[in-house]
C-alpha cells in the first residue's frame, strides 16, 4: 500500500470511509484439516491481541492442572466437556476480538470430516478465511475440501497459514513446497490466496509478533494480514431484489414486509412481483417509531412497504423494478454441496428454499459428481454426503431467481428434507421450459411436474395370490421415491362404484371396464395407477389394455397355485366357496384364464415378496425410461 505525502480531498474521503468501515466487525472463518492447529491458533490469537477476559487463562490453567493435563491454548475455546475429551472442535464457535485496527468475529470452524455442515455454517457468514496447513503433514484431504467449499460459498479473501513451523525447524524450503503445491490446487478452483504466512501458533510466532526464527519471512504477520481484509461488496448498486417475507394486517394498513437483498427501494418506485408479474407502486415505508420514515432502504435493510394499488402479493414473491427483473422458471443447472446423512437422489422430492420461496423440487439429472478433495469425477447414481455435484433442478412451480454470477444472493438456494437443511447450491444457468404455458394443461406438463410419465400396473391373479400385498409394497416404494402413485383396489371398488355388480360373467366384464376407466383417469392425472383385480377372463383384460393404450401398460400376473391360495385363505372365502356359500368363485366354481404373455410373471411360491416387488419396479423403470423422452427437455 502506498501513502501519498500530500493529503488530497479524495484521500481524505477514502480515509474517512476506511474509518467508518472499520467500525464494522470483520467476520473471519478459520478452516483446515483436523489437528492442523485451528483451536490453538485462535486461542493464541486471542491471547496475543489481549482479547481474553480477565482470569480466563488462569481458569483454564487451573482446570487443566486439576485434571492432570498440560495447558494448551486450544482449551480456551473448547468450552464444552465433550470437546476436551475428544480434543477436536465440534461446532462453529464465534469469538470476538480486536486488533489495534478494528473488531473481528472469528469463527473457529471444525476440521473433523463429520462436521462439515458446521464449517459451511461458519464460512457462509464470513467475509474472509484463514486456512491452516500443518507444515509437517502438508496438504491433506480437508485442506482441499475446505478450499472447494470456500469457493462455492463465495468466500474470496483467503490467507493460508502454514502452521507448526517449529516442527520443521522453521524451514523455508518446506514452506515453499507447500506454497507451490497448494497454490496450484487453489488456482484450479479459481481461488487465490493473498498470502501464505509461516507461523507457529503454539509459540505465537508471526501471529501478532514477528518470529526471530523466521527472518526469511518478509511478508505480514497474521494480524497485519487480517487488517488488510476488506468487507464484502455493498450490493446497493445492483438491481433491486426484495423478497416478500410476509404481509401484515395488524391494523387498517396492509404492509408488505421483506428484506432488501440487493439494490435499493424508494417511495414512488414501480414494482413488479415475480413469479406472477403483477405490478404496483411503493406508496410509503411504515417505519416504527416514526413519525418520519426512511427515504430509501438499501441492501440489507428491512422494509415495510404499503402499495398504491392493492394487488395480490404473497410470501415468496420477489419485488423488482420492471426494468430489471429476475428470471422466472422451473428448471436450472446448479452446483450443489450435499451434507445430508442420506445421499441426494434424483426424482425424490426435496424442499428448495431460495430467498423466501419454498417449493418442492427434484433433481432431474445428475450431470457430474466431484470428489471435493481430489477434484476428480465420481460415477454414481446418487450424491453421497459431503460431496459436490452439478445437477439439473426442476421445481414443482415457477420460482424467481438470478444466476449466481449475476447476483450471488438471489442465485443460490438451500435444499431441505423433513424440515432440515441438508445442502445448498448456486445457480449456474437457466433452462428453458419446453412447453408453452398457455391454455389447456397437457399430459407432458403433468409429467414434467411429477418428474415421470404416468403408467398403469395391472395386477391379476387368484384371490389370495398376493396381488394386494405386492401392490401395496410397490406403492410404498414408489411413493417414498417421490412418485405420484395410487392404488385402485378391486375390493374397494366393490364397496362403492361397483356395488351394483355381482359375479356373473357380464358383471365381471363391467367391473373390469370400470376399473380400467378409473385407472385411466388417475393415469391422465399424471399418476402411476396400480390396479389389483382378479379379472379372470383374458378377453376382459384385453379390452382393458386396449382402453388404456395411450398409457404405459404393464400386466403383472401374480401366479400362485390354487392349493397355495386356498391354504392361505386370508379372508376365509375359499372355505365359504367350498361350502357353496359363494357362487361363481374364481378357481372353485368359475374359471381363471392365466395371462399368456404378461409383462411380469411372479411365481409367489418361488419368489420372496421383496424379489417380486423388485421385478415389478424393474419393469416399470424400463417403461418409464423409454417414455421419458416424450417430456424431458
Amino acid at each position, binding site marked *: 500500500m502506498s501513502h501519498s505525502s500530500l493529503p488530497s480531498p479524495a484521500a481524505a474521503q477514502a480515509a474517512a470511509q476506511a474509518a467508518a468501515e472499520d467500525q464494522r466487525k470483520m467476520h473471519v472463518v478459520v478452516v483446515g484439516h483436523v489437528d492442523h492447529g485451528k483451536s490453538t491458533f485462535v486461542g493464541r490469537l486471542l491471547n496475543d491481541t489481549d482479547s481474553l477476559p480477565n482470569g480466563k487463562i488462569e481458569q483454564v490453567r487451573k482446570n487443566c492442572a486439576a485434571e492432570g493435563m498440560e495447558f494448551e491454548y486450544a482449551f480456551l475455546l473448547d468450552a464444552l466437556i465433550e470437546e476436551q475429551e475428544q480434543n477436536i472442535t465440534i461446532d462453529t464457535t464465534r469469538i470476538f476480538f480486536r486488533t489495534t485496527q478494528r473488531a473481528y468475529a472469528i469463527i473457529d470452524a471444525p476440521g473433523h470430516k463429520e462436521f462439515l455442515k458446521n464449517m459451511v455454517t461458519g464460512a457462509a*457468514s464470513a467475509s474472509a478465511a484463514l486456512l491452516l496447513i500443518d507444515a509437517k503433514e502438508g496438504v491433506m484431504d480437508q485442506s482441499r475440501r475446505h478450499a472447494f467449499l470456500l469457493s462455492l460459498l463465495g468466500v474470496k479473501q483467503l490467507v493460508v497459514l502454514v502452521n507448526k513451523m517449529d516442527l520443521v525447524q522453521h524451514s523455508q524450503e518446506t514452506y515453499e513446497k507447500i506454497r507451490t503445491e497448494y497454490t496450484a490446487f487453489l488456482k484450479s478452483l479459481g481461488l487465490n490466496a493473498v498470502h501464505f504466512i509461516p507461523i507457529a501458533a503454539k509459540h505465537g510466532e508471526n501471529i501478532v509478533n514477528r518470529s526471530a526464527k523466521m527472518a526469511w519471512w518478509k511478508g505480514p504477520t497474521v494480524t497485519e494480514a487480517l487488517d488488510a481484509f476488506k468487507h464484502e461488496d455493498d450490493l446497493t448498486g445492483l438491481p433491486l431484489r426484495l423478497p416478500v*417475507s410476509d404481509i401484515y394486517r*395488524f*391494523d387498517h394498513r396492509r404492509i408488505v414486509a421483506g*428484506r432488501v437483498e440487493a439494490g435499493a427501494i424508494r417511495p414512488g418506485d414501480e414494482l413488479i412481483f415475480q413469479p406472477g408479474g403483477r405490478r404496483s407502486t411503493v406508496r410509503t415505508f411504515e417505519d416504527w417509531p416514526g413519525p418520519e420514515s426512511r427515504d430509501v432502504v*438499501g441492501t440489507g*435493510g428491512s422494509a415495510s412497504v404499503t402499495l398504491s394499488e392493492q394487488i395480490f402479493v404473497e410470501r415468496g414473491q420477489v419485488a423488482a423494478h420492471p426494468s430489471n427483473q429476475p428470471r422466472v422458471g422451473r428448471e436450472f443447472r446448479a452446483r450443489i454441496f450435499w451434507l445430508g446423512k442420506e445421499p441426494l437422489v434424483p426424482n425424490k422430492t426435496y424442499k428448495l428454499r431460495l430467498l423466501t420461496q419454498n417449493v418442492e423440487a427434484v433433481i432431474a439429472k445428475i450431470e457430474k459428481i466431484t470428489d471435493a478433495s481430489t477434484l476428480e469425477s465420481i460415477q454414481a447414481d446418487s450424491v453421497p454426503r459431503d460431496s459436490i455435484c452439478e445437477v439439473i433442478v426442476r421445481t414443482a412451480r415457477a420460482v424467481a431467481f438470478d444466476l449466481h454470477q449475476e447476483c450471488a444472493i438471489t442465485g443460490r438456494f438451500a435444499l431441505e428434507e423433513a*424440515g432440515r*437443511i441438508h445442502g*445448498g447450491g448456486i445457480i449456474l444457468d437457466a433452462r428453458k421450459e419446453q412447453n408453452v404455458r398457455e391454455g389447456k394443461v397437457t399430459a407432458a406438463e403433468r409429467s414434467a411436474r411429477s418428474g415421470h410419465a404416468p403408467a398403469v400396473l395391472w395386477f391379476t391373479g387368484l384371490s389370495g395370490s398376493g396381488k394386494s400385498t405386492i401392490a401395496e409394497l410397490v406403492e410404498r416404494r414408489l411413493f417414498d421415491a417421490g412418485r405420484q402413485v395410487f392404488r385402485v383396489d378391486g375390493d374397494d371398488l366393490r364397496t362403492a362404484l361397483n356395488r351394483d355388480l355381482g359375479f356373473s360373467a357380464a358383471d365381471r366384464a363391467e367391473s373390469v371396464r370400470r376399473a380400467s376407466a378409473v385407472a385411466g383417469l388417475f393415469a391422465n392425472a399424471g399418476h402411476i395407477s396400480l390396479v389389483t383385480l382378479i379379472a379372470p377372463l383374458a378377453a376382459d383384460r384385453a379390452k382393458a389394455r386396449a382402453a388404456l393404450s395411450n398409457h404405459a401398460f404393464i400386466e403383472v400376473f401374480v401366479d400362485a397355485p390354487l392349493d397355495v391360495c386356498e391354504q392361505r385363505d386370508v379372508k376365509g372365502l375359499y372355505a365359504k366357496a367350498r361350502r357353496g356359500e359363494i357362487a361363481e368363485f374364481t378357481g372353485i366354481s368359475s374359471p381363471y384364464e392365466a395371462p399368456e404373455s404378461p409383462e411380469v410373471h411372479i411365481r409367489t411360491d418361488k419368489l420372496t415378496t421383496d424379489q417380486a416387488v423388485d421385478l415389478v419396479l424393474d419393469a416399470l423403470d424400463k417403461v418409464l425410461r423409454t417414455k421419458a423422452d416424450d417430456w424431458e427437455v
Partner: protein
Amino acid sequence: MSRNAQNDHLTRLEQTSIHVFREAFANFRSVCMPWSMGKDSNVLIWLARKAFCGKIPFPLLHIDTTYEFPEMYEFREKAKVIHGIDLIVRVNEDAIRRGIGYATHDPVTVTHELKTVPFKAAIDEFKWDALVTGIRRDEDPTRAKERWFSPRSAEGNWDYKDQPPEFWGQFASSAPEGGHVRVQPLLEWTELDIWEYIRRENIPNPTLYFARNGKRFRSLGCHPITHPVDSPASNIDEVIEELKRTKVSERAGRAQDHVGRNSMQELRAKGFM
C-alpha cells in the same frame, strides 16, 4: 444520526435482527417471547416493534421466580403499558410450597425449579413452536455455539452436537416433533452493542444498571444471587465508556454460572436459556 445511514454497525445488527423476527413469525404457527425485563430483553421488544411496525403480534412470557428486585416488578408494569404487551406471567407455586428457595437450596437447584420447570410447563400449556430469546454469542462459550434458529426436542434438550447447518439466510423452518425452535435475534450482538443501541434508540430500562454508591448491576437475575459490580458508571454514557475498557465478564455477578466448572452447560442442556 441520518435517517438513511444504513451501513453503520448498529443498524446492520438491527436490520438483521428484524429479518430474524420476521422469518420466525412467517414460519411458525405459534410464537412467544420470554421476557426477563433485563436490557437484552428490552432491546428485543424494541426490535419486535420495529419488525412488526409498532405492534408485537405474539405474547410475552415472564417466568416470575418471586425473587426479582422490587424495581423490576415496577418496571414490568410500566413497560407493559408503554409497549402494549400481551403478558403471560407464570410462577412455580408448587416449588415455592415445597420450600425451594435461596435460603435453603443451591442456586442451580433453585434456577432449575423456579425458572426451567415453570418455563417448560408454560411451553406444554401453550404449545408454542417458536420461542424468541435474547441470548448473545459473546455471553458464554456454550452460547457461542448457538444458531439463529435452534431446534429443541420435546424434552427441551439442545442437541448441540448435531445442529442443522444454517447459511445464506435460510433457517430451520419447522420445530422437531413435540419440540420447539429457539429464535435468537441478538446472537451477533455484544454487550457494548446492546448499550450503544439502547442509547441511540432511547429504549426504557430498569435503573439498576446504573451505579448507586459506587456499585451497579451489569446483569440482572434473582436478587439473592445477583451481585453488583464496583462501578462509578451512573448513566448510559458512562456505562458505555466503562464497557469499552473492561475485561471482566458480564455474567461475573451471576452466581449460578460459577458453581461448578460446567454449571452453565448443565443448566442449558436441561432447558435453561
